[in-house]
């Protein structure tokens, strides 16, 4: 079941990575594979247990019998010495090559997965308690100290040979009163006819105390102490050992060795790491639910099938089944070989199908590499039999999810990310190890009354606490993590989909590749194309044509800060039409394209601080060949050639179909309002002789009326700087001109600006922007019209801007001597690069949420009120029903369980035994009463005396602070 967690998370990644049908099919197959493996490895809870220890092996290698329940390789380690490994599952006997000496109550078991599909070899170490301590004695050959030589006795025979060490004597003497019968020397007695006893040598001390030498080498000292104690025993003396805190008598050789082993050398510390714990059932349920949800998410759009993938997945499935059921003989010898074979098979097949040579590095990064990691995690999930593997999988999947989220641009990713993060955090917190409860029970004794057989079942409150903690962790991470800024510069994504090569070299093309401007100079709108409907995406812009633009999402932009996504600029204006420069610029075929610097194309010399802004455009609807991007693009990663125009804008040699991706790196000037105002009158800064090519941006149409010039003079003469003049002009336009998409068109031949300012006073963005541009040009300030898109709506989590066809826009760009071209817009706010704070995901989310709540406050209040009222009413009804159903004794049992924290497998008496001594008597009596209520058939539940007794006992046994509350809930 633990594999399900990892598998579910991994499958979630598959949905994250991309929405293409091939990966979806892959994920479906992997779902099947995972379910299959989950069924097969239903009991992969790794459990190692020592079932027997061969006791009595004085020297040499004692054998330890170990039982494991999954196919793993087990080796035992005692004091740093690892035994020969043995293979599970089942019961295996392992000879332990132990240390020179020591007493061990635990061994460290190292398990390694040998199952066929685990090409990640996981080694895991856990301490395993021994049923009885393992004693390693010093080698027998070292016990050579101070044994006395055998002595002759009166009958002439050497008696020492027939006696064991420890009964060694050197003489006999006649019986004296008081002698023990045990000391009778029977051979001599029978031979001589008089009772004879063994005599101890007069030189033997009656009592020998051996003290360990702390300064000596522990192993050598242990051998010395053992030898001296054994020597004392051998001569019949009472052998005592003194470790400084007290003396202890030893009675035999084994006791001497044990004492020396325990006191002379520090017993090797066995690490108390986590034990193999089964996951709590609540998380198994949660993971199963997550798996179901993910399967639904994945299966829903999986309608298109692809037979190579089907074949590959079926083959993988069959291989997995065969390998699991029938393990070849060579597999035990080298599990690595199998793992490599399976891995290579899967990776090769996946790479063949998924990789596309046209996509280049980006295709590899998006496709096979991520797939390899995902498949690796799924395969690892087959063997994830313990918590550590699950944690490993979780952390890895978080990395992959982060990678996927940097590529995702659709809004569904936000919801999925939220679900994933909460589930991820909760699973991670739930996979903490639990204390070894069972060991405590074992140490306390078996079956004795009063011993609490505590089970490790988590309470509902604790599970809720884990969820709350997980949410808190997620909120904390969201608040501290900044908005994602997209992939690194190493992998500027680029992708082309359904391109049409432009028919006219360097010209603006419609999405179908045909020129956007007809031979007569009029706009040729492509039928049925949302992106082609805007009049600004052509060689000329007619200010009297208004577009009727739909709300279709045209493209998405991943960028850290908003900006105007500019398509092209117009330099000359004839009173009605804006025209782009005739020069097509340079055709560049390198990848990526480095747009040359400021000097060549003029008017872009910048002395203010700059900042790089990377924007990745994900095209959703077929678009023209105009390359969008914030001003000023310096680098472009796109498929195909690019025309770099004199004004710094870019046109591709082919159009961008739906699904295309390109990345623009722009160098923005970090301007602020103060910086712009400080540059004074721009007209004075325009250099004479036109070294920067600015003169064409000062051209004023002949049809410009005098009252237009007068208005401009009036607005700009009063302003201390050009910037303030522009702000004044914008304010004037906002005040006197109404933005109206249905404004009346100017009469034929009339000047569009004059008509707007003094005629209709109604217009749309092209006309308003034209008016500002013309007014600026009359003041000698270089200005031009720019066409493109406003930033669009930003998604909170992914930081992606969603741009619609109706976001198409035209605005004014004004040249400033220090900061270059700067966008101004009388109808919308222009984001200034130097004043933008990207913020964090959490702040964005909070802003959106608070905005939504304030917009729908009455609805929120109503819903919350109804929900709260309903919950309260339901809780009340439930409580009443439950109280009635449970009855008095049931409620008393409930209160008892709460007060004494009695788990489901703890009996009442055992729970009461854990009460503090002053209250234990009452608790035990209450437990007996509750037991009687259940088990005694003659118990009278309605007896008021018994009820009163139970109430008083509960009051007496509960902690005083809680007694009142307990009694209140009882009645």
């Amino acid at each position, binding site marked *: 079941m633990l594999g399900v967690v990892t598998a579910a998370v991994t499958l979630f990644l598959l949905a994250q990575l991309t929405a293409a049908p091939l990966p979806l099919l892959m994920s479906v197959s992997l779902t099947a594979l995972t379910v299959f493996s989950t069924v097969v490895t239903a009991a992969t809870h790794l459990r190692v247990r020592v079932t*027997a220890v061969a006791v009595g092996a004085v020297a040499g290698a004692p054998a330890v019998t170990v039982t494991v329940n999954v196919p793993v390789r087990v080796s035992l380690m005692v004091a740093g010495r690892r035994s020969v490994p043995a293979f599970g599952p089942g019961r295996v006997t392992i000879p332990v090559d132990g240390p020179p000496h020591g007493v061990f109550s635990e061994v460290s078991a190292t398990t390694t997965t040998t199952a066929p599909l685990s090409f990640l070899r996981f080694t895991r170490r856990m301490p395993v308690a021994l049923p009885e301590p393992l004693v390693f004695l010093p080698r027998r050959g070292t016990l050579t100290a101070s044994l006395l030589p055998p002595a002759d006795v009166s009958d002439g025979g050497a008696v020492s040979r027939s006696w064991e060490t420890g009964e060694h004597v050197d003489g006999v003497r006649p019986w004296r009163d008081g002698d023990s019968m045990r000391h009778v020397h029977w051979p001599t007695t029978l031979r001589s006819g008089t009772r004879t006893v063994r005599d101890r040598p007069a030189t033997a001390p009656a009592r020998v105390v051996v003290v360990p030498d702390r300064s000596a080498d522990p192993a050598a000292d242990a051998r010395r102490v053992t030898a001296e104690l054994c020597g004392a025993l051998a001569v019949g003396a009472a052998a005592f050992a003194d470790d400084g805190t007290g003396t202890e008598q030893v009675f035999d050789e084994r006791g001497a060795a044990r004492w020396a082993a325990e006191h002379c050398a520090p017993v090797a510390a066995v690490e108390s790491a986590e034990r193999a714990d089964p996951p709590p059932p609540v998380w198994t349920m949660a993971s199963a639910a997550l798996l179901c949800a993910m399967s639904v998410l994945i299966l829903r759009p999986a309608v298109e099938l692809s037979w190579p993938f089907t074949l590959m997945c079926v083959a993988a499935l069959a291989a997995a089944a065969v390998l699991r059921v029938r393990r070849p003989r060579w597999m035990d010898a080298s599990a690595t070989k199998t793992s490599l074979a399976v891995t290579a098979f899967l990776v090769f097949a996946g790479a063949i199908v998924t990789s596309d040579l046209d996509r280049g590095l980006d295709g590899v990064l998006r496709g096979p590499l991520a797939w390899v990691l995902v498949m690796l995690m799924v395969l690892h999930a087959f063997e994830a039999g313990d918590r550590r593997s699950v944690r490993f999988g979780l952390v890895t999947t978080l990395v992959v999810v982060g990678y996927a989220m940097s590529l995702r641009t659709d809004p569904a990713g936000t919801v999925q990310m939220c679900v994933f993060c909460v589930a991820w955090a909760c699973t991670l917190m739930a996979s903490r190890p639990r204390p070894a409860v069972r060991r405590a029970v074992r140490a306390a004794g078996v079956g004795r009354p009063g011993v609490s057989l505590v089970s490790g079942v988590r309470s509902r409150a604790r599970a809720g606490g884990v969820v709350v903690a997980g949410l808190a962790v997620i909120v904390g991470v969201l608040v501290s993590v900044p908005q994602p800024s997209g992939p690194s510069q190493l992998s500027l994504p680029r992708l082309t989909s359904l391109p049409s090569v432009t028919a006219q070299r360097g010209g603006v093309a419609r999405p179908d590749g045909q020129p956007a401007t007809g031979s007569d100079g009029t706009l040729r709108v492509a039928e049925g194309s949302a992106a082609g409907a805007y009049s600004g995406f052509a060689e000329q812009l007619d200010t009297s044509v208004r577009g009727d633009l739909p709300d279709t999402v045209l493209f998405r932009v991943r960028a850290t800060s908003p900006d105007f996504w500019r398509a092209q600029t117009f330099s000359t204006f004839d009173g009605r039409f804006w025209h782009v420069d005739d020069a097509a610029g340079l055709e560049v075929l390198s990848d990526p394209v480095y747009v040359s610097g400021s000097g060549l194309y003029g008017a872009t010399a910048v002395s203010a601080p700059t900042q790089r802004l990377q924007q990745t455009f994900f095209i959703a609807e077929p678009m023209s060949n105009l390359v969008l991007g914030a001003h000023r693009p310096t680098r472009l990663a796109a498929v195909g050639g690019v025309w770099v125009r004199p004004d710094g804008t870019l046109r591709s040699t082919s159009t961008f179909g739906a699904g295309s991706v390109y990345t623009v790196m722009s160098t923005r000037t970090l301007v602020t309002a103060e910086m712009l105002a400080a540059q004074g009158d721009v007209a004075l800064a325009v250099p004479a002789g036109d070294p920067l090519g600015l003169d064409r941006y000062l051209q004023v149409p002949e049809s410009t009326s005098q009252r237009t010039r007068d208005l401009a003079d009036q607005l700009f003469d009063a302003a201390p700087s050009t910037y303030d003049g522009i702000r004044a002009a914008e304010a004037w336009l906002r005040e006197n001109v109404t933005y109206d998409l249905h404004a009346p068109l100017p009469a034929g031949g009339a000047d569009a600006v004059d008509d707007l300012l003094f005629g209709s006073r109604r217009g749309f963005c092209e006309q308003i922007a034209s008016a500002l541009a013309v007014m600026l040009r009359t003041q000698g300030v270089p200005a031009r019209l720019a066409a493109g898109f406003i930033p669009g709506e930003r998604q909170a989590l992914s930081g992606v801007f969603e741009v619609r066809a109706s976001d198409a826009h035209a605005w004014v760009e004004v040249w400033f001597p220090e900061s270059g071209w700067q966008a101004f817009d009388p109808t919308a706010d222009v984001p200034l690069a130097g004043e933008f704070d990207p913020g964090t995901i959490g702040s964005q989310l909070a802003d959106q949420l608070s905005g939504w709540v304030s917009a729908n406050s009455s609805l929120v209040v109503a819903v919350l009120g109804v929900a709260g009222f309903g919950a309260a009413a339901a809780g009340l009804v439930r409580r009443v029903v439950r109280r009635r159903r449970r009855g008095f004794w049931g409620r008393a049992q409930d209160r008892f369980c709460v007060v004494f924290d009695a788990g489901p497998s703890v*009996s009442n008496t055992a729970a009461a035994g854990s009460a503090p001594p002053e209250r234990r008597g009452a608790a035990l009596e209450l437990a007996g009463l509750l037991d009687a209520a259940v088990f005694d*058939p003659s118990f009278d539940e309605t007896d008021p005396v018994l009820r009163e007794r139970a109430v008083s006992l509960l009051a007496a046994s509960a902690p005083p602070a809680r007694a009142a509350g307990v009694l209140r809930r009882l009645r």
Partner: protein
Amino acid sequence: MVRVNQRTSHLSLVRARPVPIASRKRDRPHATRVHDALVAAVSSVVAGNDDLIEMVALSLLSGGHVLVEEAPGSGKTLIAQAFAQALGGTSSRIQGTPDLLPSDVTGQMLPDGDDMLMFHPGPVFANVVLFDEMNRCSPRTQSALLEATEEASVTVDGDTHELPDPFLLVATQNPLTEAGTFPLPSATLDRFSVAVSPPASTRAEQIEVFVGRRGRHLLDTVAPVTDPVEVSLVNSIVDGVDVSDDVAGYVADLLAHLAGMGEVTVPPSTRAGVATVQLARAAAAVAGRQYVTVDDVTRVAPFTLGHRLGAAPISSGHTLVADALAAVPVPRR
């Protein structure tokens, strides 16, 4: 090899006879009193071995039999003799050897005078029988006791002879690692309601024995604290203790959980549950109750189930049962 303790032999007296069951109000202290007196008498002689003494007492009062897995020299014989003496009944001791025959245990037909074959009862005809090192004798002799343990009777040459009542068999087995042992088949193991594997005696207990405060020499000081008739009466009291469906269901859950554990090679039989319930009845009666609670079951379950799981040594079976007890939810209100 076979030695019958004839010191207190009164076989004819211990035939069970119907005893009127007194009212329940007076029954309760009866079982408690008999139990406490027996345990006190035995404990005054034997040092330590609390679990063993307790389980032997409960088995005696519930009509079960005890298997002890222990190294020699730890006082098993003394316990059996002390029980027999405190009981006021007979005791005998059978030493298991490979050449021990069934007739050596049960008794046999021998010529008596002129051509008459008379039944000479074997050592099994005693209130407390200690079968030492049972797994050293052949399986044939081991199975000679099956009828005795199950039906409290012995059949020789077609004649069925009733065993004295109460009849308690205390068998010991050496650890299976020793040479020359026949492992007891699980069918035979199943006949023992209780198996105990006492821990090694502690230093303090050894001192008690060495200085003479406990030990064999005190056996003569044990006076009968009850008589077989009274023990039979307590037997019938124990049989009358109520077992609710909840407790029975708990035992069934315990057996099912044990059967599902990976380390259990032999799933416990229904007879295991019967023995558990019966011993829990005795524990309840001894505690002065007329009904069995979960605590009675958890008290006796390790000893009644540990030897039936195919686990060796028996102490590891006890651990398995403890694990199961920690996992199975208890019945509650």
